């Protein structure tokens, strides 16, 4: 096979995410390029192949056309990526501050481990936990997207009418257990 064509196909292969179909797609593209070259020029040489490759499109563009329907995170979930990361980071940040103040290490299963560190080390630790939290949320949203299930992700509606809430028994019955649960959770972390 031509060296130019081989390099071109290798580049497309690198861009294609779906490993199952990679081989078949590459075989198809190769067949199309060879066919076109022969039909347009009457012979397949390095030079004629190069001309066809030039008009076929850049490897990235070609690969993208095959991945039109492939999404890492569904567009409807993208808004949740930053929201959930912000919440997770807030929790992670607070726990790190607690660990710093009391000079302890913390393990909150299954995701957080906060080592014992000084303030200087914490300066480097905070950006790292943000990236960690972003990655963790990204992975979860990736699996939710790939499951192709019609999942409705939870997020509290913050259009609250505090006057109504203060009068509503139903709302109180929801908020009080939530506060108690948070307090209990904090106590557990503290005890550990």
């Amino acid at each position, binding site marked *: 096979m031509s060296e130019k064509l081989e390099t071109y196909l290798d580049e497309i292969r690198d861009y294609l995410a779906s490993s199952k179909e990679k081989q078949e797609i590459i075989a*198809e593209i190769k067949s199309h390029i*060879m*066919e076109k070259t*022969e*039909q347009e020029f009457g012979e397949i040489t390095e030079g004629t192949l190069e001309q066809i490759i030039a008009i*076929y499109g850049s490897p990235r563009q070609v690969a993208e056309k095959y991945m039109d*329907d492939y999404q890492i995170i569904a567009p409807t979930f993208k808004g949740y990526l930053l929201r959930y990361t912000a919440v997770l980071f807030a929790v992670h940040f607070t726990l790190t501050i607690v660990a710093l103040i009391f000079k302890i290490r913390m393990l909150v299963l299954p995701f957080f481990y906060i080592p014992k560190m000084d303030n200087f080390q914490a300066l480097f630790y905070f950006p790292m936990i943000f990236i960690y939290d972003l990655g963790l949320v990204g992975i979860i949203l990736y699996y939710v997207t790939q499951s192709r299930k019609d999942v409705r992700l939870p997020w509290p509606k913050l259009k609250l009418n505090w006057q109504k809430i203060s009068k509503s028994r139903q709302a109180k019955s929801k908020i009080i257990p939530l506060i108690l649960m948070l307090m209990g959770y904090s106590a557990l972390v503290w005890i550990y």
Partner: protein
Amino acid sequence: MAIDISPFATEMNRGFLQVLVLVLLEKNMYGYAMVKQLEEKGYTLEENTLYPLLRRLEKKGLIKGKWDVSKDRPRKFYVITKDGRTVRSQLLAIWRQQNDILNHLMEETQNV
């Protein structure tokens, strides 16, 4: 300044090309022959648009692809399936209905 209509045309052509392919593949054809036949009818398209479309239609079971390895170079031939014919007739019905709606609207607008 002239407006570049190519993004709008691409968007519009996406569905149309799907129907064209399903109509064209009533008989066994390979990719390059399809491009040439469409060009003869005045429809120009980029091959790197057609081939991913063929793959998507094949994955959905609307067309069937088969490699012919009898010649010195393998070629992939495609043909419409039973499901493809069902989808095609429904798509054509939608297309005709849309055409009628557009024509009626155009007539109404001209009469205003």
